């Protein structure tokens, strides 16, 4: 009986393909939107989490200038290496501090050249940025102090400049400094914003200051808090210390910014989740609108088929059987929309994941929920037209032209 009804429903839907397609479009879009949002959202969240984990959750970043919002900052008083040393010396929960300066410079080897981020730092940098040296060695104390022309390069720079050759011991030119490559960093891939983290060349900070920037300024200080110590507390301590060192009176605001990776992580995942929630709400509205579309078409269908309903009732169909027939049709309609939506969503989220470069994480439960929800839409919005059909007076229905 049920099988017959399902066959009948699909026969009926096939009769007016155009109408069927237009009717289920709302459901298709709704279901597809929900799944794409959730899939891409989860992929992005997972990537952020992965990213944070690779950076180390106990990382603090101190930059000069107070962040005032997007793209705005107050006039900056730059940090000096002494600030980093003071933090390391005075705050016990700090495991390492790395003063870092960065400049984009064209690196040249032979006839190859590649524009990369030249980073001036010391050996603490490996710890704070959670990196290891894959080949070669780190800087010696002598190199750091004297400002020797040596460099540890990232995987991308190695590939672009050396083309399979062993870079260790080779000389690359950064502006007018000829640096010997002493090490290669382990590759790390892209970060949350899609930046290549292996596109860098690290040289001693002293070398950077003397021969590239020409000043004693430090772009930022990366701080690694000891395992088990509170980053919040360390952050407060650093803020207090820096205010003191920078002579900021109690009434003035900080002219520097201490960023906590946990906060960044929370902010990023929070944004993704909020976006997912908002777009899912939009998708839910689309499902609602789709449901109303189905109800509308089912009502039209009941009116068109009044005579058929009359015939069925006259030859002995029960009220419930007519109700079931139209309900099955509505559910078939909405489920079809659900299935098409799922197919569309799979294609869409695969494509978007590729474009946005986030991992494709398919949440099967959301696919199941979306499908059940679309079927549910059919039940809810099909019930009223189906009941209308079932309650028809067979005599009136048979007279209907």
């Amino acid at each position, binding site marked *: 009986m049920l099988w017959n009804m399902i066959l009948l429903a699909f026969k009926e839907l096939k009769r007016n393909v155009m109408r069927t397609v237009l009717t289920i479009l709302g459901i298709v879009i709704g279901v597809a939107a929900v799944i794409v949002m959730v899939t891409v959202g989860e992929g992005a969240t997972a990537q952020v989490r992965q990213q944070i984990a690779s950076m180390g959750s106990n990382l603090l970043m101190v930059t000069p200038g107070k962040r005032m919002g997007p793209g705005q900052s107050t006039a900056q008083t730059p940090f000096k290496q002494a600030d980093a040393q003071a933090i390391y010396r005075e705050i016990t929960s700090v495991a390492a501090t790395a003063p870092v300066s960065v400049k984009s410079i064209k690196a040249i080897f032979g006839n190859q050249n590649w524009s990369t981020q030249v980073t001036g730092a010391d050996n603490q940098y490996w710890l704070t940025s959670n990196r290891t040296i894959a080949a070669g060695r780190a800087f010696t104390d002598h190199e750091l102090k004297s400002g020797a022309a040596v460099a540890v390069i990232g995987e991308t720079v190695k590939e672009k400049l050396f083309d399979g050759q062993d870079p260790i011991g080779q000389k690359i030119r950064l502006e007018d400094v000829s640096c010997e490559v002493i090490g290669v960093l382990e590759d790390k891939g892209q970060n949350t914003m899609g930046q290549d983290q292996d596109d860098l060349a690290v040289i001693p900070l002293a070398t950077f200051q003397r021969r590239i920037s020409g000043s004693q300024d430090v772009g930022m200080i990366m701080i690694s808090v000891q395992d088990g110590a509170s980053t919040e507390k360390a952050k407060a301590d650093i803020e207090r210390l820096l205010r003191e060192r920078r002579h900021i009176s109690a009434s003035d605001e900080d002219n520097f910014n201490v960023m906590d990776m946990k906060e960044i992580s929370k902010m990023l995942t929070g944004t993704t989740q909020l976006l997912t929630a908002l777009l899912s709400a939009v998708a839910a509205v689309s499902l609602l609108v789709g449901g109303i579309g189905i109800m509308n078409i089912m009502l039209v269908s009941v009116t068109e088929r009044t005579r058929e309903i009359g015939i069925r009732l006259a030859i*002995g*169909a*029960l009220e419930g*059987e007519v109700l079931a027939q139209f309900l099955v049709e509505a559910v078939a309609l909405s489920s079809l929309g659900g299935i098409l939506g799922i197919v569309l969503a799979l294609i869409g989220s695969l494509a978007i994941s590729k474009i946005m470069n986030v991992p494709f994480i398919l949440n099967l439960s959301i696919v199941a929920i979306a499908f059940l929800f679309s079927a549910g839409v059919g039940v809810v919005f099909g019930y009223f037209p189906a009941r209308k059909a079932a309650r028809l007076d067979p*005599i009136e229905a048979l007279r209907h032209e």
Partner: protein
Amino acid sequence: MTEKTVLIEISRLTKVYGTGQAAMEALKGIDLRIDEREFVAVMGPSGSGKSTFMNILGGLDTETSGAYRFRGVVVGQLTRNQRARLRRYYLGFVFQGFNLLNRTSALENVELPLIYRGLPTRVRREKAMRALETVGLAQWKSHTPGELSGGQQQRVAIARAIVTEPAVLFADEPTGNLDRSRSREIMDLLVELNGRRGLTVVMVTHDPDTAGYAGRVVRFVDGLIESDEPNGRVS
């Protein structure tokens, strides 16, 4: 002649449409008894109440007062669904306008009542084929109503009515939309079903020629039975 068994028994049946001032008495007190195997023609001018009477007999409508017993069951006391089951298992209908499902083949139209009996597909097909053979349309089974003539459509409708082997066939103006020779074919078929299969037939008509095929003619005038007499033909 076998012993007569009562199939339908009607006493002091009335039907009033509307209420108060607008009330219209369609049936004003009908007494009638129909036995199994009878072929009864119900005649009368339009507005005489014969259609209302047929709707009540068919369990599609209920009386205002009086009683309609079908094989002893008081139909007026049944629920809507119980009356649907009565129609499903005991009654067959043939209408003036054929009332077949368009876009559906003759065979599928005949199968329709069997679906509601929950029979498996194979059994349905067999029974529907046999019914189509009975009305002489076996080779037309795949045609939709639109591809059949009026007479053929009515024969499909008859096949649909008899496929369930009902106790009685109600025919409402079965030849109303057909020309003379098609009418004769349909009436011959009904007479044959009545005679050979012992199917009780109750037929509403306003055409005396059509009524002439019945064994008994009941005349309605103004909501009352004016006359009720045998037709000379032995059923």
